[in-house]
């Protein structure tokens, strides 16, 4: 009990002795976590959106004339032979017209002057959900274009490619901010502890002469690093949560956020970021302790 009380008391004493530096360190850790978590949050949401888009993926083959009922099984077989497909729907001109009409709802009057034959017939191909590779989608698309009466294939692969490129770019940003987080945390904490050690040099020397054990001297410094990691990451994640709430309240309703179903980190991931920050800061403390304290 006395041991723990001492460790806590000494940690408090260290923090008070170098409070200016401690505040700066806390701010740096907070900003690093905020920066990393911000990009990471966008990245995880983009990944989820990307997965959902993949789930909704369908290839539409526009035809220059309708496929007769008796020929449909043959075409369907051809498609299934090329690749795994969840379902294939043949859409006639009339069905296409009624769908559009239903979509327009109250505005369907605009279609009055147009005949029910103005839309082309089509085949809707829904690949299996594991088909997310853009190259394979492109190959599938090329194959569909070889089907009889195929005029055009719409796969949305260009859009998916652009989305994928953006996600990849975000991945790089997340990695870079992660590296920045590691460097800033370990170095800043290490530097701060070095200042603590320097400011207590005389005291540490006397403690050594009085028989202070390694744990007695090192544990408060280690706890100092852990505290900085915990407080800094808590503040950083807290700030990000507030930012998220603000964005969610400002941009609620149909729009970008709804499109992407923007969500905050799940509790496990929040805990993991917190733990990683604590581990990084403790690592920085250990480095400093090993380097500057000789007991």
């Amino acid at each position, binding site marked *: 009990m006395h*041991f723990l009380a001492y460790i806590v008391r000494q940690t408090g004493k260290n923090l008070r002795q170098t409070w200016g530096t401690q505040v700066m360190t806390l701010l740096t850790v907070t900003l690093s976590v905020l920066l990393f978590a911000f990009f990471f949050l966008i990245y995880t949401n983009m990944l989820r959106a990307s997965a959902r888009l993949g789930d909704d993926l369908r290839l539409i083959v526009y035809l220059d004339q309708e496929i007769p009922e008796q020929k449909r099984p043959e075409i369907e077989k051809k498609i299934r032979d090329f690749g795994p497909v969840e379902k294939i729907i043949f859409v006639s001109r009339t069905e296409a017209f009624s769908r559009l009409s239903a979509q327009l709802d109250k505005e369907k009057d605009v279609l009055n002057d147009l005949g029910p034959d103005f839309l082309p017939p089509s085949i809707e191909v829904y690949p299996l959900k594991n088909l997310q590779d853009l190259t394979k989608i492109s190959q599938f698309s090329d194959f569909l274009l070889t089907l009889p009466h195929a005029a055009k294939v719409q796969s949305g692969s260009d859009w998916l490619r652009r989305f994928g490129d953006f996600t990849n770019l975000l991945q790089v940003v997340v990695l870079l901010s992660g590296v920045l987080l590691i460097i800033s945390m370990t170095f800043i904490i290490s530097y701060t502890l070095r200042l603590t050690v320097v400011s207590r040099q005389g005291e540490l020397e006397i403690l050594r*002469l*009085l*028989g202070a*054990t*390694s744990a*007695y001297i090192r544990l408060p410094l280690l706890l100092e690093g852990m505290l900085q990691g915990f407080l800094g990451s808590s503040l950083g994640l807290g700030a990000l949560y507030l930012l998220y709430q603000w964005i969610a309240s400002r941009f609620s309703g149909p729009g970008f956020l709804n499109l992407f179903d923007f969500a905050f980190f799940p509790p496990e991931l929040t805990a993991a970021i917190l733990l990683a920050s604590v581990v990084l800061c403790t690592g920085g403390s250990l480095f400093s302790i090993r380097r500057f304290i000789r007991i």
Partner: protein
Amino acid sequence: MYYYGLAVIRRVSPVGSKKVFHMPRDASTDKPLVELVNVAKIYPPDIVALEDVSLRIYKGEIFFLTGMSGAGKTTLIKLICRLETPTRGLIEVAGRDLSRISPAGIQRMRQKIGIAYQDFRLLEKQTVLQNIAMAMEVTYASTKAIHARVDELLALLNLSDKRDKLTGELSRGEQQRVALARAAANGPSLLLADEPTGNLDPAATELVINLFRHLNEKNGSTIVVATHDKSIYAETEHRVMDLRKGHLSAHPNRAPRQIELFEA
């Protein structure tokens, strides 16, 4: 030539008082608390601080180590608490070879050894209480126990009114007494005092001697005093040995009754 001092049969107060200590012992059968065998310390390039020093200090003994400045007294004290390592020879404390004790073991040992340094080694920006408390805090003593002990020691050394003063604001004599109080704080098994009365007037010296006597009687502490202050060992019947140019010998003015020497 090896010299071992035999503990005296009757022990008296070092200064004036004729109080008899109840420490009859037969040193020849007792295990020494501190033992040095053929110890030499040579500082680079070739400054000989100690040369072939052999010595036994027994549990409960008060031992005076005299000699002029530069004779090697401080070096000997530092060797006993392993602040220095010997160039040659064996040093044992409580039967353990210091060269074989791990750094953690040395730290634990130092908790049981009180050391009053010649240069005090106090933190001048901390109070008297904080300075003395440090010695007990490293043993994780409770705050209550620390405060009680500090008050007791300050009363013994007539420093009660200085408890909350910064040590940097004290006189040299007061600082010296604070350093002694810190060395005595844990009721050490072994107290090493390097020139403990160097800055003290006779009245303060008497207080220090009383502290030593108190520790020796109450805790059975072994006390090693390195000094060139004749006033604290002139009247004593405790063992007094002299260091001269790194060589240890019986003090020239000691009666054979008090210090018996034999060749090992």
